[in-house]
């Protein structure tokens, strides 16, 4: 779904969202008040420039709109893979943005991320997986690495991986597979405005994705081991 199709569905009452250099920002109106919208579009790769711009948007909401819910609209093709960005410490720029999302939640903002396009590798961690809750549209795409690349790195035949990906969710790209690991709270279908409203009523104080993964069967061990070590 394109951003232009998405926004009216999320905010039937209207929005002031604009796009500058693939960075999405503005407010959406809902029955319960204004929602800050921070996002990216056109599958932009997240480099230092994009990460700083997104971070500035978070700081602005934290400073000027205390408590306002934040909806992150996610569409990226991963982190930027460029020498200049790595040279200057891209990891730190990503971590900085991640901490702002986390601090926003701690400071009383509801922070929900919605993957409406792509979300890949470092881009998904930078912008999506570190929100209070992460959601996705059914036709969106989440992946760490595409199968041909996995085949190259693991030296396994692509046909084998393709066959395996039909039954083993833990490595295969796609929203359905990622949902099973517990990484997505829900896949939003139907009335997106309702979905969003409902998400902003959730208690985001605990990370329960390990339990979701256990319930859904995508991560059979994680929750058990976490508990074991906590109680050891």
């Amino acid at each position, binding site marked *: 779904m394109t951003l232009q199709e998405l926004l009216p569905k999320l905010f039937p009452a209207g929005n002031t969202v604009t796009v500058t250099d693939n960075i999405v920002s503005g407010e959406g109106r809902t029955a319960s008040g204004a929602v800050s919208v921070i996002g990216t579009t056109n599958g932009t790769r997240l480099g230092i420039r994009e990460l700083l711009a997104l971070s500035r948007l978070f700081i602005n909401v934290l400073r000027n709109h205390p408590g306002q819910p934040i909806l992150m609209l996610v569409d990226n093709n991963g982190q930027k893979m460029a020498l200049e960005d790595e040279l200057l410490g891209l990891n730190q720029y990503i971590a900085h943005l991640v901490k702002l999302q986390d*601090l926003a939640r701690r400071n009383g903002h509801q922070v929900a991320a919605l993957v409406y396009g792509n979300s890949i*590798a470092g881009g998904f961690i930078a912008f999506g*997986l570190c929100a209070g809750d992460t959601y996705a549209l059914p036709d969106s795409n989440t992946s760490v690495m595409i199968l041909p690349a996995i085949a190259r790195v693991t030296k396994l035949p692509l046909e084998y991986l393709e066959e395996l990906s039909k039954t*083993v*969710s833990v490595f295969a790209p796609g929203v359905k597979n990622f949902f099973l690991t517990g*990484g997505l709270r829900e896949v939003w279908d139907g009335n997106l405005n309702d979905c969003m409203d409902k998400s902003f009523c959730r208690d985001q104080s605990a*990370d329960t994705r390990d339990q979701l993964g256990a319930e859904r069967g995508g991560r059979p061990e994680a929750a058990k081991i976490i508990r074991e070590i906590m109680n050891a």
Partner: protein
Amino acid sequence: MNLQNIGCNYLEASARKRLEGILDPGSFRELCPPTEKRISPHLHYFDIPVAFDDGVVTGEGTLDGKTVAVIAQEGRFMGGAIGEVHSAKIVGLLRRCLAKKPDAVLFLFDSGGVRLQEANAGELGVAEIIRAILDVRAAGIRVFGLVGGSCGAYGGAGIITGCCDALAVSEEGRIGVSGPEVIETNMGVEVFDSRDRALVWRTFGGKNRYLQGQVRELVEDSMESFRQAAIRLLSLKPDYSLDQLEAEQKQLEERAEKFAGCRDAVDVWRKLGYPSPENIPSLTVAELKSEGGAK
């Protein structure tokens, strides 16, 4: 030069050996030890051998008498890659800290990032680790990262380093998101030759990360240097606040602006004011620090 100076190096020590060397002697207690055999439930699909600790050692001990929770990744098992069990052990230990309230957490990084055979679980695991680290920091417990293993801290691990309170890194230690081969593939070998080791280390290595302000302690590659640096880090005050993140924003914006267009660490170091930046790779840590005073 004599034998004593060779010391016990950190780079090639195993994860358990590093913990032995960093912590107070005899104080380490492993949680979820290898005898539990919590092995990866996924690797068998790929016909890959498992490890009894899934490539990470977790536990508790003391450092200079202070209680610390510790995580040490084993870079030699699958490049320290983060999979389901690996990340769950780390998350479990971090969550345990909320109840046990140690003085600090030490995270000994040695990882190329997400384990591709368990890509989804690993990716989510990284996010859970970040969340748990920030929970711990929000509770006033400091989290320090040590980077000096052969795999450095790349991908998700590189991002996690940026979520710690402070880092101690040897010049052999590397931090980044995309690895050298990925940069070469994306930009062409004429821009970045991933087999040029000197270039790789000057880009990702501890010295550059220290000089650009990402790393608090640059240390020589020895167990004792890392231990002493970790002890020094213990005196830092916890701070995870909007003010601190705004200061970081300013710092990162200044860096981006000041070094815009730099394509080699030598250009960065020249702009930092070092008179002979091309000599920096051959300086010892002590020489570099005195050079910094002289610049």
